[in-house]
């Protein structure tokens, strides 16, 4: 935890007012190199956004500066109805993403609370089970999971995806929540109990402000996982109306005419990208914090 705490203080929290350095040649070299690298890292993403406004008839020609004068929303209109309608898939992805985020956060919160603040028989075994689950990639149990979900009538079913996504996000989520609850002072819990508060009241009223960052971390990771996952999405769901956005975009790349439909795909890519970027920029602090605590523990 020391590592996380230090990282948090020094990097994530507002940077300590830097020592007033003389801005010599070294500084300008640093700024030049960092800026050049930043351009290289962000250019493909900006390019992808610009691409989505390119008229479809130009998208199979070599890019030209004149393209900028003909920017259009036509691609977005095209993917909103008809043959390449991706709106239902967008809705599926929102349902699966939010469902996974809510369920993961809820279940991980309860388990983290139990592991951090209660002593009970078998807690060692529970901890071991979660550690074991952390070591098993979903890719390794893809076939038995498919057969199991099929028997439970959970294939071609968004609930099935939510349950599986939640489960594979749980080990990380439980670790994050257990760490969060461990940082809640025991005296706070004790005094609430002395006042006669039940364990749920303690959780909901007394600890809520202290565990919100942990909950945000959990929810965001689960959402982003569900939003971008492809292998399970194409394995467990086949019926076109139930596909999530990445699975639908894959279908667009393999479309009937044998050539990729650049224009439609480019608009779909922006739909897929926007929630990730917005969530990351808005909740960056929780993202990095979670990355460190999850990574250090995992």
């Amino acid at each position, binding site marked *: 935890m020391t590592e996380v705490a230090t990282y948090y203080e020094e990097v994530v929290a507002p940077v300590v007012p830097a020592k007033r350095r003389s801005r010599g040649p070294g500084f300008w070299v640093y700024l030049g190199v960092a800026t050049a690298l930043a351009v290289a890292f962000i250019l493909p993403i900006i390019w992808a956004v610009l691409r989505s406004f390119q008229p479809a008839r130009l998208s199979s020609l070599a890019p030209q500066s004149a393209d900028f004068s003909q920017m259009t929303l036509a691609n977005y209109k095209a993917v909103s109805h008809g043959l390449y309608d991706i709106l239902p898939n967008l809705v599926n992805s929102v349902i699966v993403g939010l469902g996974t985020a809510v369920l993961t956060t809820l279940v991980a919160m309860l388990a983290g609370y139990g592991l951090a603040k209660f002593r009970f028989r078998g807690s060692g075994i529970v901890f071991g089970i979660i550690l074991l689950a952390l070591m098993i990639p979903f890719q390794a149990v893809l076939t*038995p999971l498919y057969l199991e979900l099929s028997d439970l009538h959970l294939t071609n079913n968004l609930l099935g995806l939510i349950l599986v996504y939640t489960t594979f996000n749980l080990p990380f989520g439980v670790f994050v929540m257990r760490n969060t609850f461990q940082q809640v002072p025991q005296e706070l819990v004790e005094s609430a109990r002395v006042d006669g508060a039940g364990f749920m009241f303690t959780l909901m009223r007394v600890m809520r402000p202290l565990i919100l960052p942990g909950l945000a971390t959990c929810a965001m990771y689960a959402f982003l996982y569900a939003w971008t996952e492809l292998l399970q999405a194409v394995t467990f769901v086949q019926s076109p109306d139930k596909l999530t956005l990445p699975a639908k975009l894959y279908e667009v790349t393999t479309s009937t005419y044998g050539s990729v439909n650049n224009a439609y795909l480019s608009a779909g890519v922006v739909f897929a990208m926007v929630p990730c970027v917005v969530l990351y920029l808005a909740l960056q602090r929780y993202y990095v914090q979670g990355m460190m605590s999850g990574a250090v523990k995992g």
Partner: protein
Amino acid sequence: VATVADKPHLALRKRRGGPGRAGRSAQTRRASRTGALLVSPAVALIIAFVLFPLGYAVYISLTNWPLLGPYHFVGLANYKELLHDSGFRHSVIFTLTYTAIVTPPIFIVGYGLAALLRANRFGAKIFRTIFFLPFVVGLSTVSFMFEIELQPNSGGVDFILSKLGIVSDSHAWTVNQTSALIAISVIVVWFASGLTMLILTGGMQSIPGELYEAADVDGASWWAKEWRITLPMLRRSIALALIISIIGSFLAFNQFYILAQNNVGLETVVEWIYQTAFTRFQVGYATAMAICLVVVIALVTTAQFVLLRDDTEL
């Protein structure tokens, strides 16, 4: 510093040695019940969708299970067949090759980015955000993005490379095996080095500044400081970054499934398992491959725990 809450199994042992069970108050018993109740949904889900499938997988791997229809128990036949299956062997060798190709550049670029921003100079926060952005977008979306940009003539990759004078004619990057592997590797380095940067940054920030100040007093060069102070102190973070990167590459699927469609020979292990089960309908055989995958990943993860535990810092 490990507390009891850090190690529930120790707490358990301690309690057994303490006052006898009869001494436990009703309150303790109630707390114990509550604790078990709180963890039960998580445990139920993990048993249902991780542990049960794992056991089921062992059973399926001992049968000739097709996707539909009857099946027989075939013992270890699937595993014996695996030893002589050139297709599976090819996918394993290909995945290892890919892992060997991308791991060093991801690490070097990630380390470079972390070192560049280490001093928290002007703009470091914004640069860090930008370098991590590709990872945030997700590998599936990134692959769809480059599906468009890697096309001959119209793609952005050809456009920029020809402007820079690196290529003179258009390339169908994803059609040729070598060029597809090069393109995917470059994309993955761009995608993943931000993660390595972040992990190493965490480690770098926890190295006491006095060490560098002392080295400065002794007149140590930049290289000497990196070799003698940064690298040894970063041991844990480096091990972590490398293992996350290696496991990620070994389980690669999205980038090859999307960008190397119809490019025979560029199938990773996970893709090969997927195809064996769901396009060739040999579920039993595919599951035997998956069991081998579990064993390999478990070994790598165990190595991670050994490497990361072996340290007095934490």
